[in-house]
């Protein structure tokens, strides 16, 4: 319940979620800008000159059949995969193509994997601790000590994702849904400018879904959020702008209604079911 309350009057509660002054320059234009991006594995074109722009503070849903290249797209943005051609810009200052994952992450792009990945050997608390925005170089990390204020931050997030009770249990014992939440919690600890959320509600109960939906919408505005999701219901519940990917490039873009009436899209999806 408390979560819900906080969601309603979030302005004073979620102050730590407010983006700190980050080097990202969004004064003119979008926070993420992908142009003519292509990548292929052994001849198979996973991404086929894809163009995509995400505006600052936008909440964007990306849907598309399996193999449409959704995850590969995220790999490219986060620096895991290098595209064969094209350019990817974070704000108007940072060319993501010549940065590696840690740089991109510390620049303020957080990512939640399709299959929830948390550190199963570590406790829930430790998972969040590692995620916490901090000096992440070697020696500072070695000599780091747990300051009270950090503790509070972590506890705050713990509460939000409703895992207080499991605070000191290894994350390995969490249920699928709980792992999803923990991972989202880790995202929050990172204080990112742009969140890439891959299938956040897979394996969640209705109620969990609602909370997720509320959380994500609440983030939008302060952070930019990109959600990849199969669950149309969920998409509908949060979507403002939807992008449909097919065979590695944008098939349609617009409001949920627009795309769902788009004949192309229908064909693709019917094709899927048939």
């Amino acid at each position: 319940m408390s979560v819900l309350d906080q969601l309603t009057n979030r302005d004073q509660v979620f102050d730590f979620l407010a983006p700190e002054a980050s080097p990202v320059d969004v004064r003119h234009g979008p926070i993420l800008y992908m142009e003519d991006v292509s990548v292929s594995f052994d001849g198979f074109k996973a991404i086929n000159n894809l163009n995509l722009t995400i505006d600052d503070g936008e909440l964007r849903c990306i849907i598309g059949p399996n193999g449409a290249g959704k995850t590969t797209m995220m790999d490219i943005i986060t620096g895991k995969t290098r595209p064969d051609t094209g350019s990817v810009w974070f704000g108007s200052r940072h060319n993501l193509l010549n940065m590696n994952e840690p740089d991109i992450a510390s620049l303020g792009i957080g990512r939640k994997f399709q299959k929830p990945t948390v550190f199963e050997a570590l406790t829930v608390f430790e998972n969040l601790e590692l995620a916490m925005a901090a000096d992440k170089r070697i020696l500072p990390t070695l000599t780091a000590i747990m300051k009270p204020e950090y503790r509070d931050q972590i506890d705050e997030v713990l509460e939000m994702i409703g895992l207080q009770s499991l605070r000191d249990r290894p994350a390995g014992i969490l249920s699928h849904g709980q792992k999803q939440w923990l991972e989202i919690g880790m995202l929050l600890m990172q204080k990112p400018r742009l969140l890439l959320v891959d299938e956040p509600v897979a394996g969640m109960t209705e109620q969990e879904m609602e909370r997720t939906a509320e959380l994500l919408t609440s983030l939008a505005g302060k952070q930019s959020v990109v959600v990849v999701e199969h669950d149309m219901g969920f998409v509908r519940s949060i979507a403002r702008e939807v992008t449909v990917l097919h065979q590695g490039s944008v098939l349609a873009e617009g409001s949920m209604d627009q795309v769902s009436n788009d004949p192309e899209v229908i064909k693709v999806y019917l094709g899927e079911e048939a």
Partner: protein
Amino acid sequence: MTSSNMWLLRPLQERSTQIFLGLLTAAVVVVTILHLATPEGSALHVSAYTVTLLGKYLCYALLAVAVDLVWGYLGILSLGHGAFFALGGYAMGMYLMRQIGDRGVYGDPILPDFMVFLNWQELPWYWHGFDMAWFAFAMVLLVPGALAFVFGFLAFRSRVTGVYLSIITQALTFALMLAFFRNEMGFGGNNGLTDFKDILGFDLRSDGTRLGLFIATGIALAVGYVVCRGIVTSKLGRVSVACRDAEARTRFLGYRVERVQLFVFVVSAMLAGVAGALYVPQVGIINPSEFSPLFSIEIVVWVALGGRATLYGAVIGAVLVNYAKTVFTGVMPDAWLFALGALFVLVTVFLPKGIAGLLQKRRKATDDDGANAQEVAA
């Protein structure tokens, strides 16, 4: 206390570490007393032979701890740690060779015997400085450290992981073995370095020196253990576990995985070097066979037997296996390899958490890293 040394002190407040240190100290003290206080004949007496033997086990234990640090907590299965051990050993060996001075069979004040009879005219440049203890002891740390740094830098930067890494660490130690076998290298080729006389002015043949070395090894093990423990209980330790279990995730959290790996790898290599350096004066010889991949793999098995990602497990494993070796090679030589082989198989198949795992079954899972070991995914 200042935050900078906190990480080293933390382990000392930890129960498991206190127990370990307590037992280790007790063992060393008891052996010392039994060696000095009891008469030669008596049943209680611990002979110099046994002392040296135990000293050797402790060296192996330190080596195993070093391997456990990278394998258990970083998920890097190094099949080349014998190389760092041997390099540390050679650094010490070179110092001991220089200490012989003109007491060699040819009485050459500078050149070691093997150089004289292969009629080398002068000392190779890389042998200079090893007549000074401080220099040699520095090299014990620096040489393995440097190798680990260069190798690790290349490997981790280009994200060589898992099996590939294991295989090339093996290639590394194999290449070094071949290199040190070459007599042109100036390390005594197959015969290696031997016939040492004294260390820091103490006669290596005197029981006193042996006891001293044994105690020194005990201390080294204690320190090494605390250092490793300090690392794994620090936030960095948790990060390395993170790298081990979900490397990509760790990257997306903004950690430079390759640097974490490099740091821990180098520390581990240095510990291995120290182990090697203490090993050489006690067994009295260092030669290229210490580089053999087989030996490196054996080390890993000690750790596996003792229990991964619990440093004390590594110690238990190392001591047990080597004790067994000493016994078996005496009583039933032919069975020895069967036993060792069977051990490898049984441990990996039926005892994935090693002996430490058994111990932990006893006490209910606590939240120390011991419990983490149970979550280890290869």
